[in-house]
């Protein structure tokens, strides 16, 4: 079952079309990485899912219910963590969670129980000071606690790690990984290593639509090319290597940079066999040979090219 379904969604700001016929769905139980460059429209899409922004065209369904702009009915299924969560600075974390619980209609006893449980999960159990004195990382962790208070079916996190230091980032990713068994997570980011760490499904947003979408393994298998990196001792060696007739078929997809050469192919084994034959025949000894596996970064660069 899909927790979120977006169909033919479009949104323009003035003459600039940000989202252009976007369609995608998020399956229940997944950690969905929503990847795109800065300004690609990730936040715009999320705000439309939350009913905070009006779409020009298209349909969004959360748990099979239609999302309407300005109305908050479907938000009962969603927990939302904005990129920079802002709270009432004069409150303590527990007071803020009580306010959220009361608004969402959670009983007092339940709010107290879950509030303390979640503050402990995000490492804020001892923080009795006012939110005004919190660091950015602490606010981000409190943001996760408030988003999970109502036990949402879908947790939407808008670039939760972008502004954090490596320790803060790791903490947030650990928390997201821990909750993934109980909640579906939609996680927007442009930090690809974060996606590789915790996501099982991925969508690349480019020019307002999903350029690639699927499980991480599928995407790597379908769109990724293995690459072989070669570094020669001299330019003479490189030119000699390129002149060899037996490697001509391998040179259909390559990148050259000074004494370096990157060969791409989906059948890396045959390339390696041919190469080592050429090296044996010509006596060329490259100073570095490295097999580069497809990474999200290379895929991302390929998509946005």
């Amino acid at each position, binding site marked *: 079952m899909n927790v979120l379904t977006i169909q033919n969604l479009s949104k323009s700001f003035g003459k600039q079309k940000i989202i252009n016929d976007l369609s995608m769905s998020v399956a229940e139980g997944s950690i969905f990485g929503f990847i795109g460059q800065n300004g690609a429209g990730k936040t715009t899409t999320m705000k439309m899912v*939350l009913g*905070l*922004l*009006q779409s020009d065209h298209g349909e969004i369904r959360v748990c099979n219910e239609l999302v309407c*702009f*300005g109305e*908050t009915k479907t*938000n*009962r299924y*969603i927990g*939302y963590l*904005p990129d*920079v*969560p*802002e*709270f*009432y600075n*004069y*409150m303590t974390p527990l007071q803020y969670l009580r*306010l*959220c619980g*009361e*608004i*969402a*209609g959670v009983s007092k006893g339940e709010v107290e129980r879950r509030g303390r449980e979640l503050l402990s999960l995000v490492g804020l159990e001892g923080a009795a000071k006012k939110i005004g004195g919190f660091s950015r990382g602490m606010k981000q962790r409190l*943001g996760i606690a*408030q988003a999970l208070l*109502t036990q949402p079916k879908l947790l939407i996190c808008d670039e939760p790690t972008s502004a954090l230091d490596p320790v803060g980032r790791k903490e947030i990713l650990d928390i997201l990984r821990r909750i993934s068994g109980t909640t579906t997570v939609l996680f927007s980011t442009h930090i690809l290593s974060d996606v590789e760490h915790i996501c099982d499904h991925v969508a690349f947003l480019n020019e307002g639509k999903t350029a690639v979408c699927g499980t991480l393994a599928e995407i790597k298998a379908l769109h990724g090319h293995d690459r072989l990196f070669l570094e020669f001792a001299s330019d003479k060696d490189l030119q000699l290597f390129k002149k060899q007739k037996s490697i001509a078929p391998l040179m259909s997809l390559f990148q050259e940079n000074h004494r370096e050469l990157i060969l791409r192919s989906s059948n890396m084994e045959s390339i390696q066999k041919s190469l080592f034959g050429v090296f044996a025949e010509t006596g060329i000894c490259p100073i570095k040979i490295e097999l580069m596996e497809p990474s999200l970064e290379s895929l991302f660069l390929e998509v946005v090219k």
Partner: protein
Amino acid sequence: MNGYIAFVKKEFMENIKNYRFFILLAVFLILGTMSAFLAKFTPEILSALAADMEMASEPVALDAWKQFYKNISGVGFSAFIILYGSCLSSEYSKGTLVLMVTKGLSRKAVILAKYTVAAVLMTICYWISYAAAYGCTACLWNDTDLSNTAPAAYGLWLVGFLYLSILITGCVIFRQTFTSILFTGGIAAVISLPGMMEPIAGFSPFILTSKNVDLISGETVPSDFIIPAFVSVAVSISGLFVAIKLFQKKQL
């Protein structure tokens, strides 16, 4: 309803924590107390400053009420509007409402809660100020026998609700505090215009602010206040309705 009650509590807490309530209470209390004292002692102060100046007549209790209505309708409500003008703009600029709305808080509840708390605080400040003015006037003029002081005060109190309604509408339309306050002043001026047009002057809510002293002195009767009071309430409710409708479609 859950959301409305929770947000009302949050608003009360905010107004106490940021000292807005205490500042307004102090301003209104000072204005209420000062009215009687200023009316009583201004002639003496002036004679002390200019020895050759003679006052035409002795100050009376009615002068204290004149001072009270002038101070509250001018300084008191202006202070309230200036301090409360940031009630939504600070939420817009910080983005604090986004998390509340995504938690399921209806936009109608936000506006109604903000209005409720502002109205309750205004009521507390206003009637404490009135009580202070009444007490001081009674102390300084023992033999006073003025009627209709309470009905006159009800009139200005209703205008307070009207100002708040216009202010909330301004806060919804504009993101900056200053523009919301200017909007309130502008609309208040527009609403006061019918008061200058003779055939419809009797319907203008601004009779409630300009004729209070006449009511106390007996120059007008309480029944003259009935239609303006209804108009004031109707405009306040309409303003609130418009604010809710506009806020439903406001991008947070």
